[in-house]
């Protein structure tokens, strides 16, 4: 049941028309997913987009209202017992026993999953060392820091060496250093050939995924590799550096050819979709308004792409509504 025996070519996750409602609220609506084995799949989306609901259904802890989902070819509803040994699920909330120690939590969940004593010992040692938790083995989980708690949960979900990891916002509320370290561990798992599905609200984390999907109001708006997603944004991205950037935004938005304007720190980011030379058009418009600024083209990042896509889908909804 190690990663190396995972049959290549069989999808890690296949979902079709997956749907789940809570009363009147449609949390996940007709979601299709096809995640190949070995991928690091980023599930992006704002709070309340349905990321957790989707992951919980794939982790077999929540039943879908309709639709099907398979993990390594096994149904998450009808064949739970075939699915659960191969997955590691890390919920958004801290879900270890607060009054058990780091080692006791690791031991408990590994033993429950039938990991033998010798394996438990070697894996626990290796995991705790690689995560920098080896000094805290006897500390009760409730007394760990936020980042250490997340690492403990990840270590616990790795003790039975699952082929698929379902991680629900594992780095939310974790300091930047711990976040980087967490992704370093995930990169190692990716190299081992494991499949990772990770939900995250952080766009910089999306860059590290082999594939991403944007989830908004329960629907997948776009999916593909980060480069493919970026290519879906029409035009080129420009960064305008100037004093009082907030005030200049209105001027820039009125220039023909500009499709979107965003503030990022103290620069304005402009999406340009026209044949004309953007630099001349923008500096010209700024000069006409009595301002001056420096324009340079930048490679689109996920932050901008996400903001653009969210805006575009919002605009599409408004059109539909009117």
């Amino acid at each position, binding site marked *: 049941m190690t990663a190396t025996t995972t049959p290549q070519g069989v999808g890690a996750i296949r979902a079709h028309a997956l749907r789940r409602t809570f009363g009147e609220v449609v949390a996940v609506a007709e979601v299709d997913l096809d995640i190949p084995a070995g991928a690091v799949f980023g599930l992006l989306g704002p709070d309340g987009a349905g990321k957790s609901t989707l992951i*919980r259904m794939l*982790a077999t*802890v929540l039943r879908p209202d309709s639709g099907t989902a398979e993990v390594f070819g096994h149904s998450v509803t009808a064949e739970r017992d075939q699915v659960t040994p191969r997955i590691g*699920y890390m919920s958004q909330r801290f879900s270890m*026993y607060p009054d*058990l120690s780091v080692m006791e939590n690791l031991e408990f*969940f590994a*033993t429950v999953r039938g990991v033998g004593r010798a394996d438990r010992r070697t894996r626990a040692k290796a995991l705790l060392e690689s995560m920098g938790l080896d000094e805290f083995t006897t500390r009760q989980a409730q007394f760990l820091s936020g980042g250490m708690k997340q690492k403990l949960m990840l270590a616990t979900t790795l003790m039975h060496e699952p082929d698929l990891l379902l991680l629900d916002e594992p780095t939310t509320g974790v300091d930047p250093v711990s976040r980087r370290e967490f992704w370093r561990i995930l990169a190692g798992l990716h190299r081992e050939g494991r499949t990772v599905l990770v939900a995250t609200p952080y766009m910089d984390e999306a860059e590290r995924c082999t594939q991403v999907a944007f989830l908004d109001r329960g629907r997948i708006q776009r999916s593909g590799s980060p480069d493919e997603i970026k290519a879906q944004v029409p035009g080129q991205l420009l960064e305008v550096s100037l004093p009082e950037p907030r005030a200049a935004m209105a001027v820039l938005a009125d220039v023909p050819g500009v499709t979107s304007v965003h503030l990022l720190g103290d620069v304005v980011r402009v999406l340009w979709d026209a044949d004309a030379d953007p630099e001349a058009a923008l500096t010209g418009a700024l000069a006409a308004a009595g301002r001056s600024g420096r324009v340079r083209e930048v490679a689109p990042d996920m932050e901008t792409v996400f903001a653009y896509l969210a805006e575009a889908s919002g605009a599409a909804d408004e059109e539909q509504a009117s």
Partner: protein
Amino acid sequence: MSARRIRLLIWKEFTQLRRDPLLIRLLLVMPVLQLILFGYVVAVDIRNLATAVVDLDQTSTSRKLEAAFSGSGYFTITQTPATEDDLRPLLDRGTVKVALVIPEGTQDRLDRGETAPIGIIVDGSDSQISAVGSGYASQIIAQFNADRMTEQGVSVTAPGIDAQVRVMFNPTLDPVNTMIPGLIAAIMMISLMAIMSQAVVKERESGTLEQMFVTPIHATEYLIGKLTPYAALATAQMLLVAAGGLFWFRVPFNGNFWVVLVGLALFMLTCIGLGLLVSLVSRTRHQAQQAVMFIMIPTMVLSGFIFPIQSMPAIIQPLTNLIPLTWALEVLRGAFVKGSGFEALAVPMIVLAGFAVVIFGASIVATRRRIAE
């Protein structure tokens, strides 16, 4: 079903219990405290009933009768008014709880071989004192008659003193004897309800319940692992109370061990079921605590644990049948005090079994469904 996984769950539960020193202390102190409160306070109160004696006979017989009362330990003769009229204010003020009136000519009647009536007046404002007090009095007089007959070699059928009190239950009934078996059942109910009601809520609050779903643990294994440690703990508490009752308060155990065991086992299932149901309907531990209080108060008041059911208003009495503790008390008191067997206790046993099947069954089905959701 895997015994290994169940053992693991039990180990986990005990480890968590050990880490909660306050809970452990409470669980061990509570039975002892209740044993002292219910056992000692009640016992002392009923042992030295303030008693008045109106001796209109002034003979050796009347003095012997007085000595029998004061020597019993249940009655302390504090007043000796000259006439029966003086008794009334003493009883009204509560100066005495019991009065003994020995009419003139009692010894003469007995000597002539007639029945000699004497009066025993008991303060009826306290149902427990009146019932127990008159019981003791009858017992003393019966003993007095028996002694007199053996002294004189008269046949057993010969008339003697006729006390004007009628008590339908065993006059040797000591309140501690009925209180201790009741306490065993009550403590089991309180502690099981209190802990079981927290069991599932706590895991849901900490998010560990969801983590359980992605392990091979089945709902049944989870439930067994959860219930066993607390059932064991409740058993330890019961043994503590039983030992305290039998060895410290010297409550006689006349009954059949198996009757007590079966009755307690059925009642234990009922309590576990009630606790689990509370745990299921509560979203937080605080809500669960409130729900337990909501169940415990009517249970304590209406079950006959503190107040005798016979002294409740007629419209309330049928309600007491709906309370499982009522039937558990009937089984335990019957078995401890009267030594009743399975046949005599068939009705309460069957009712208890009914409660156990319905409540425990419903809680298991509901918990499984909730966990599987």
